[in-house]
């Protein structure tokens, strides 16, 4: 049946049809929906792991046990999983294993713009890259065949524009796979030096065979053009931009397999045209390969290695005419993402901002505390970096906190990679204060459960990590819980903990206001006659509050009645409608 399918949904469908029966992932935009959609199939066991390293090792364990498995992550998640990655390349698999990784050129929702193709080359693993949903489904299936034929994990590389675009797919039935028998094989699966030394040549041999496979595989497609003046080598979503701009005029070598690249295929293609142009997003990965073969190309000289491409950018690079639009003659203010009305992070951040603390931040919705008017965050690097970072910051100050520096980290991020940082604080004894923003969900990626929520991916009840007990077990004696809607309480507790001569954890606990079970109170009421236009209520950056003709106004459709603004108003102009 023909249907419109999101690229990520199509990957999940491909997993299903290929007989995959095991998925372990950590959410991350733009990869999250692969696992959410896979979980809809009764035939697939799917779970959220606490982080990508655990997910990959788990999926490997399932493949070792003989089930076709998958793990999915965003590009930066692959950094977390890089440790098992480089070694499961040596062991190979038992049943097929596919690793889904989604890049985010243009950084729609990411902290960097890294190009995951380098991992395929570095870890010596094959990588397939689809250019639309139809290919996403097909390539997922082919990836399993390659995985089992060549005894290797296989990358399926997505990017935002393929992952989050719907296009037409045709589905077919699932082919059920019987479990491959697990047979003990120490020299294949125990990677100690003696065995690993014997596996490395096998890996190199495998890459040679995969390059031969690439030269004849239908994954790569040579589309003959109307003339042979220009030949374009391209991949993924860039192929779509090239087709949009050039149609059938030029010869195109579309790589579906981006690693290994067949030398033979590239040389033949280059010899058939007068000039080779490589159209690829981010780094000149394919171009460097061509250049190393002595093939002259144009690529990064025409197309930037920064940001994503588009049809106009491709047209511009190729010197083809395109229309530039005209904008209305007006100054249009930006509309950056903001913390939602009723967001529990807001009250806590207001206190951090008020106390002028240094805040070592982390990855999640609460990164938004960095923007005006709160301006409350000093650094954001990667998952877990807040807890480790505050320790280093304080140790550099002779092990003492300056009384002004804290770490903030969300519940899911703390589970992901904050725990080990906290162990370091305790073990190496820094006087650090870590604030865990426990909103009972993984918020930024769209409400996924995690080990602190008490539910699993399928929504069934699950073991719930007791954050207070965990912190105490690590050796943190001072663990306190505050309600982020209570500004006075937050301020008192933060001041007290910063003054202590020991490490501490403050858990700022209140569920995300967007969770369905969270009941909102009636909107806050403003007594216009009491409002003195002091704009104190504007300091929290709540999208429900604005000033109209010198008076505060509450948007009743947005206000959740959290009451944080009422605590700031010195003139009692803002009142909670109910107690």
């Amino acid at each position, binding site marked *: 049946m023909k249907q419109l399918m999101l690229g990520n949904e199509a990957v999940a469908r491909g997993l299903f049809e290929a007989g995959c029966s095991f998925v372990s992932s950590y959410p991350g935009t733009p990869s999250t929906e692969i696992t959410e959609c896979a979980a809809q199939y009764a035939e697939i066991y799917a779970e959220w792991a606490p982080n990508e390293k655990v997910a990959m090792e788990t999926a490997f364990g399932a493949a070792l046990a003989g089930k076709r498995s998958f793990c999915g992550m965003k590009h930066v998640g692959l950094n977390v999983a890089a440790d098992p990655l480089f070694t499961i390349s040596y062991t190979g698999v038992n049943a097929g294993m596919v690793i889904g990784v989604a890049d985010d050129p243009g950084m729609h929702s990411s902290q960097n713009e890294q190009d995951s193709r380098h991992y395929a080359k570095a870890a010596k693993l094959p990588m397939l890259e689809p250019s639309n949903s139809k290919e996403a489904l097909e390539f997922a299936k082919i990836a399993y065949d390659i995985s089992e034929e060549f005894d290797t994990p296989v990358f399926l590389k997505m990017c935002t524009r393929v992952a989050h675009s*719907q296009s037409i797919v045709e589905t077919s039935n699932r082919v059920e796979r019987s479990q491959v028998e697990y047979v003990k094989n120490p020299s294949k699966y125990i990677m100690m030096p003696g065995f690993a030394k014997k596996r490395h040549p096998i890996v190199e041999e495998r890459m040679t065979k995969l390059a031969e496979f690439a030269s004849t595989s239908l994954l790569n497609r040579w589309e003959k053009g109307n003339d042979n003046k220009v030949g374009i080598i391209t991949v993924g979503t860039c192929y779509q931009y090239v087709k949009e701009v050039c149609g059938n005029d030029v010869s195109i070598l579309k790589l579906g397999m981006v690693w290994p690249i067949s030398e033979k295929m590239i040389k033949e293609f280059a010899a058939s045209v007068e000039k080779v142009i490589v159209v690829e997003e981010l780094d000149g990965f394919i171009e460097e390969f061509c250049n190393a073969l002595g093939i002259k190309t144009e690529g990064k000289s025409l197309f930037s290695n920064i940001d994503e491409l588009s049809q106009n950018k491709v047209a511009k690079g190729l010197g083809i005419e395109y229309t530039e639009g005209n904008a*209305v003659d007006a100054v249009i203010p930006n509309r950056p993402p903001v913390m939602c009305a009723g967001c529990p992070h807001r009250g806590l951040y207001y206190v951090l901002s008020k106390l002028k603390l240094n805040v070592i931040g982390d990855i999640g919705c609460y990164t938004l505390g960095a923007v005006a008017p709160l301006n409350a965050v000093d650094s954001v690097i990667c998952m877990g970096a807040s807890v480790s970072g505050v320790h280093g910051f304080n140790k550099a100050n002779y092990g003492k906190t300056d009384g002004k520096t804290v770490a903030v980290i969300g519940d899911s991020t703390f589970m992901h990679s904050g725990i080990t940082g906290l162990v370091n604080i305790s073990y190496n004894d820094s006087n650090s204060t870590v604030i865990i923003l426990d909103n009972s969900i993984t918020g930024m990626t769209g409400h996924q459960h995690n080990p602190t929520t008490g539910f699993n991916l399928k929504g069934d009840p699950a073991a719930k990590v007791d954050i207070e007990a965990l912190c105490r077990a690590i050796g943190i004696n001072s663990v306190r819980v505050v309600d982020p809607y209570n500004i006075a309480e937050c301020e008192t507790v933060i001041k007290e903990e910063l003054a202590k001569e020991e490490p501490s954890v403050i858990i700022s606990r209140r569920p995300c206001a967007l969770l369905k079970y969270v009941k909102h109170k009636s909107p806050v009421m403003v007594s216009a006659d009491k409002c003195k236009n002091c704009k104190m209520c504007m300091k929290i950056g709540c999208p429900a509050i604005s000033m109209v003709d010198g008076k505060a106004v509450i948007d009743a459709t947005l206000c959740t009645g959290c009451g944080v603004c009422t605590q700031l108003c010195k003139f009692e102009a803002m009142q909670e409608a109910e107690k």
Partner: protein
Amino acid sequence: MSNNTKNIMIVGVGGQGSLLASKLLGRLLLTKGYDVKVSEVHGMSQRGGSVVTYVRFGDAVYSPVIDEGEADFIVSFELLEAARWTRFLKQDGKIITNTQQINPMPVVTGAAEYPAQLVEKMKNDGFNVDAIDALELAENAGSSKAVNLVLMGRLSKYFDFTETEWMTAIEDSVPQKFLEMNKKAFALGANA
């Protein structure tokens, strides 16, 4: 190439319900036998930020996105957002916009001003603008959340798909209990 591809951009503020509009359009266009691509951005931009969805259809659609100067229609859920994306409109393209104004944070904090008279400004600059108070029409239909259906109703005026085809797509896209309200919103938008 792909000259017959039609481009519709749906723009607005995160949380306004533009995903339902693109879902509805996608279903309709698929049943009409077109090649269709719908692109959206998830994640961070949902949090009250500026959001854009691209809907493209024709015989063969390649790029999943609409670039500057390419949109046949910009359907905007909010006035400032219509103005923000004007550069993406084709020379003879049309802007269908809700006149509702939602202040972005720089305006809320006083760092920037919401430009006045935007509909007039766009018209003066030669843009073809169809502006309606979709929020009021949605409330008349029974819910402020039906702005998306009001705007789809408005858009339907510019296509020769039958009412039955639109109704089928609506039935396939909205929950049964809100069906009548949404159909009413669609009709109000079409006839406003």
